[in-house]
């Protein structure tokens, strides 16, 4: 693809922009929730209270998959000798794995 690296860069920064509020929110929730110990009921009670929670976590999963995989690809390219097509495909697979696991987890809490 023409200007592949540029588009990956844009996707990575774009997904970071999506992640930013979600992570902050997630951090807030964690901070709020941890006090006094966690229970499944509490977690699920919250996440099932509104369709917005699962939607949010789904978006989180997609963005994290894109962001993390592109990030790893860059790090591996720069810090190891591994590069080229096999790296691209592996990180793509990693993105799909993250996405799959993420969506499955969302399904659980939905």
């Amino acid at each position: 693809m023409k200007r592949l690296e540029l588009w990956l860069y844009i996707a990575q920064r774009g997904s970071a922009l999506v992640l930013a509020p979600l992570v902050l929110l997630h951090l807030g929730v964690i901070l709020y929730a941890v006090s006094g110990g966690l229970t499944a009921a509490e977690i699920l009670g919250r996440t099932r209270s509104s369709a917005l929670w699962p939607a949010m976590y789904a978006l989180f999963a997609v963005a994290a998959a894109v962001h993390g995989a592109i990030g790893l690809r860059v790090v591996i390219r720069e810090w190891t000798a591994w590069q080229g097509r096999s790296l691209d495909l592996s990180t793509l697979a990693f993105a799909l794995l993250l996405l799959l696991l993420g969506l499955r987890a969302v399904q659980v809490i939905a």
Partner: protein
Amino acid sequence: MTGTLKVEIWRGAEEGHFEAFEVPTQPSQTVLDLVTYVQRKLDPSLAYRFACRVGVCGSCAMMVNGTPRWTCRTHVNKVAAEGKVRIAPLRNLPVIKDLATDMAPFFDRMQEAKGRFVPSEAAAKDVAVVPPDDPKRKEAAAGIECIGCAVCHSACDVVAWRPDYLGPAALNRAWTLVNDVRDGDRQGHLAAVAVDAGCHACHSHQSCAEHCPVGLNPSRSIAGLKQLVLWAAVRGEL
């Protein structure tokens, strides 16, 4: 004031070793003077490069105790750690001999980044009217006094990790051109830095700005390019 300094100098090319010399110290003495002393008085076969000796030609840069510096403007006092100075050829460039590197790859990057003025068709016979406080003029002026010493190129780890990376100096030059209202090919300059190892390969390490001997800030220029390129790409202009 007279003492001696232990000076270790890289000998060889890509393969080589450090060789130690004792050099008498002087009140006014630059790292280039140490090297000159060794070549003139101790070992006539030592190779290094300099020209202007006042910090304008950018040919004397070397690694001094692990840091890239312009040696003609670096006082020994500033770098001598416990009476010892270790001098090596600039990093991230092929070594020709001893302290002299081949700088051609560095200038090749400048060209790849289309780091050269393109006259505009409209250029009249007269010199363009450009007020000095025009924001674009100020951006261009801030980055223009690059002496091409490759210190930033040598300091940047991304250059080391990705040898095809255009590098801070080339991108900095491109930024001055993108802001040059007289230039006739803004789009061409942007396209040249939007390549795979272009401006967005930079991770904002800022070692370039940290080490630039003339105080330029390539990080800033690169950040500027990243934005322009990003919007141009999103708008489908690239």
